[in-house]
C-alpha cells in the first residue's frame, strides 16, 4: 500500500493505492489521524485500491467516525470490486461515495 496526500487549506485529499488489509490498515488509519488536525473536508481517493479487507473496512470506518466529529469524509473513484464489498457490508449507506 502507498499513500500520498494533497492539502489545500482545510481540504485534504489522500490517495491510496494497493491493498488495504490487516497489515496496511493500521498504517492508513494512523496516517489519516496524523493529518486530520484542522481538516474539515477529507477525500480518500481509492482509484488504485484493488482490495479492502475487513480490517481495511474497520480502518475506513474509524476514519469516517473521527472525521464526522469535525467535518466530512468522501470516498472517490472506488473500483467496482471494492464498491461491491462496501455494498455487501452496508457501508455504502454511511459513506459518501462519489
Amino acid at each position, binding site marked *: 500500500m502507498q499513500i500520498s496526500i494533497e492539502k489545500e487549506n482545510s481540504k485534504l485529499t489522500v490517495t491510496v493505492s494497493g491493498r488495504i488489509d490487516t497489515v496496511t490498515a493500521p498504517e492508513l488509519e494512523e496516517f489519516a489521524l496524523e493529518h486530520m488536525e484542522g481538516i474539515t473536508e477529507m477525500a480518500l481517493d481509492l482509484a488504485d485500491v484493488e482490495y479492502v479487507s475487513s480490517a481495511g*473496512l474497520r480502518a475506513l470506518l*474509524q476514519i469516517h*467516525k473521527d472525521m464526522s466529529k469535525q467535518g466530512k469524509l468522501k470516498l472517490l473513484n472506488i473500483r467496482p470490486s471494492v464498491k461491491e464489498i462496501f455494498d*455487501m*457490508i*452496508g*457501508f455504502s*449507506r454511511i459513506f459518501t461515495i462519489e
Partner: protein
Amino acid sequence: MDKKKFSRNNLAFNIVSAVLLLILIFSIIVSLIGSNILTEIVNRSYGDAAYAVADMGLTMVNGNHIDRYLKNGESDEEWQETTRQLQTLCDRMQVTMIYVICLDTADYESYTTVFHVVGSDIDDYKPLSLGQVKTYSNDSFKKEFEVLYADDNIENSTLIGAAELHGDKSYITSVHPVRNGSGKITAMLCAQVPVTDMHTRVKYFARIAVAAIVLAALVIIVYTKYIRKNIAGPIGRVSAETKRFAAENTKGEPLDIVSRINEISSLSHSIDEMEEEMLEYIENLTAVTAEKERVSTELSVAKRIQENAVPHIFPAFPERKDFDIYAYMKPAKEVGGDFYNYFLIDDDHLALVMADVSGKGIPAALFMMVTNILIVDRTRLGGTPAEIIEYVNDTVCSNNEAGMFVTVWLGILELSTGKITACNAGHDDPAVYRKGGTFELVKTVHDIAVGAMGGLPYHNCEIQLNKGDKLFLYTDGVPEATDKDMKMLSLGTMVDTLNRHKEETPQKILAGINNGINEFVADAPQFDDITMLCLELKEAEGKNGGMPAEDAL
C-alpha cells in the same frame, strides 16, 4: 595467576621477550660495526706511522752493499754508520724495531739478518746480530714476502699486520723492498710500531657496549612493570572476566581498570557495561519466553472456550429427521473472529447464524464472544431477525471504542414451511441449492455491519426452502482464500465447487469445499478465518436423520 605469569603465551612475556631480542640484536650489530670501524682506523693510523718510518729508513740503507756487509761483518764502517742512523730513527720515532733482512728466496722459510735495531726503551726484543739466520713461522708473512720478491714493479711498501693485533702486545710492521742500483731487490726493510692503545680503545668500546646493554635491560625491567600494570595485567583480568562470564552468566565484580592506556581503560569499561546489558537482556529474554509460554497456554485454553461457545457435536440433532446440519470453523490463528451458530428456538423454528468480526486473533475473538452471546440471548426472546440485529447493533455500538464491527447473517427457519426470515448485516450472500437444480447465490437486501454505526434500521428478507433444498452459509475466508501468489479463490469457484458436491450430505459438501480450498491455497499460510455451515431440508421425515459423526474435516 602466578602460573599464568610464566606461561609462554602470556602477553607480557611476549612483548618483553620481543623487545629484549630486538635490543640484543641491535646491540650486537652496533658493536660489530663499531669494533670493525675502530680497528680499521687504528690500523690505518699505525700503518701510516710504520710506513713513514720504513720510508725514511730506506734512505739510510745502501741496497748495493748488502752482500758486502754480510761478507765484512760488523767491522764494516759503513754498516756501523747505517746502524747508528737506524738506531737514532728508531728512538726518535718511538718504533719497536727496524730491521733489514735477506730472505731465502728458495722457500722463504728463513732469513739472514743485515741490520737490526731495537728501540732503547723496548725490553721485549733483543737486537739480532749481522748474519744471524732465523726461521719464519708465520705463513702470512712468508706469503707477503714472496709477493714482494716476485714482483719488481711494487714500489710501495706493504703493510703487514702483526699477529696478536688485539692482544696486549700488538704491532704493525711496514715492509719496504731494498733495491740495488739496477732496481733488483736485495733485502727487505721492516719497521715495526707498537699498537699500544689499541687494546685500551677496544676495551673502552666494549665497556660502553656492555653499559648500553645493561641500561637497556634496566629499561626493559621498568617497561615490563609498566606493561604488566597497564596492558598485560588488565588484559589478563579482562580475559579472565569474560571467560568467567561466558561460563557462568552471572554478575561479577566490576573490572573498573584504570590504565594509562586509554584503549585498555575503555575496553574494561565496555566489558563491564556489556556484562550488565547482557544480563539485563538474558533476564528480559527469560521473562519474554516465560510470558510467551504462558500466553500460548492461555491461548490454547481460549481456543477451547471459543470452540465450546458454538455447537460442535455432530450430528447436531440426531432426533430430528426433517433437517440435517453441519458446520465447520477454522481460525487463521489460535482464536478467530468468525463464528457460526444454530439452535432450536422452539420445535418449529431453527435459528441460523453466520458472522465475521473485522480483524483476526484475540481482539476479534473477544468481540465474537460478545456478539455471539448477545445474538443468541436476544433471539431466544423472540422477534424478527431485523429486530434482533437492531438490538444487538445498538448494544454493541453503545460501547465500541475499539471501532470493531461484525458482519452477521441471521436467519430463522420455520421448519414446517421451509420459510427463512433473514437479516443480512453486511454479510456475504448465502448460496441456495434447489432440488434438481444447482447452488446459486441469493442476493437480498444488505444492511450495515453490526457495530459500525448505531441507531440504523435493519431489514428482513425471505428465502423459501423446499424439501430437498440446501442452504450454504460462509464467511469471506472461503471465497477469499489466498494462494502464495495472492490470488483469491473467488465466489465463482466456490459455487462451482459446491455444485460438484451438490447431491451430497451437508457434511460431505463442507468437506468438498474444504478440500477445494486446501488444493487452491497449497503451501500458503491461512490468511483469514474459514467458517461455513450447510443445512439440508430433508425430503421425507424419518428417512434418514443426521449423518453419523465422521472424523472432523
